[in-house]
């Protein structure tokens, strides 16, 4: 097993934990808010899911930087200017900042949830586009913004259907 393969493995595990964590965080949050109260058991479950999400994010970021160092040392420095890579970096930054503003209660839950969920899936998809893809930085971010709006709208409908109002 060479270093590149090891980094791919770690990156995949991190992404799986992150995307899965974000998905289940949203599902459990919706379940918890159905009766309007988040009880201690639900809080404990959410805390566990967020911990898994953080572990996934950490693994993904560390392995991601590992790739960048490897590209630099192996003479593939041009990859570091790949537009899809930088779009993915922006999306990861959104995940990080979103977590902070959610903790500070500076962003409404409907937007914070949509940003978190969309960003994780977007990072997963954009990761596939790095390399042979012909996608520009602004093109990818344009689709991303549309996706955030779409997910926000979908979550709004789901919340209305299950009786959550906020």
């Amino acid at each position, binding site marked *: 097993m060479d270093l590149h393969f090891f980094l791919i493995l770690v990156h995949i595990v991190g992404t799986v934990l992150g995307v899965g964590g974000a998905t289940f965080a949203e599902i459990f949050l919706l379940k918890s808010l159905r009766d309007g109260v988040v009880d201690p058991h639900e809080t404990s479950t959410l805390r566990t899911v967020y911990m898994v999400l953080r572990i996934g994010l950490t693994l993904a*970021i560390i392995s991601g*930087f590992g790739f*960048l*160092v490897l590209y630099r040392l192996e003479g593939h420095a041009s990859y570091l*200017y790949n537009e899809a890579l930088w779009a993915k970096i922006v999306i990861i930054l959104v995940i990080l900042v979103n977590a*902070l503003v959610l*903790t500070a209660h500076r962003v409404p839950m409907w937007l914070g949830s949509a940003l978190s969920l969309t960003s994780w899936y977007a990072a997963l998809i954009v990761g596939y586009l790095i390399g042979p893809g012909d996608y520009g930085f602004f093109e990818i971010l344009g689709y991303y913004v549309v996706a955030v709006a779409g997910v926000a709208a979908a979550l709004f409908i789901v919340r209305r259907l299950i009786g959550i109002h906020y």
Partner: protein
Amino acid sequence: MLTLALILHVILGLIAVGASYAAVMLLLKRTIASRWLTWSAGTAFLAYLLSWLTGGYYYVVYYGFSVKPIIKAGAYPWAHGVVMEVKEHIFLFLPVLAFLVFLATLLPHELETDSMFRRSILLLSVIVFVLGLAIALGGIIVSGAVR
């Protein structure tokens, strides 16, 4: 040795930025988990210090003679002229600010009860995180110009 220094510089930098992020997150919570906060802030300070030393070794011994000329002669000379120059000087702020944050975490009662004090440390922590992050991203830009 030089490759090891570069790898350690990146890893330690990541640890530092991650620890700074954790410190900001902990300061934003309603109740401060003071032990975790002290550990995060202390880790950030130490990691920035060690990242500075390893990066500094690579920079002084190798970068100036072997990497900088390649960048300056290449398609992206601003990667050194702007990004690297800003990065190497702003980095000097980080151990200073990170140590102030760490020292403040040794006053947990005051952080919990004095909202203005907490706000000032939060601002310093955010600055440390943002600068650390910008410097890390700057490193990607500088590395990408080496061709």
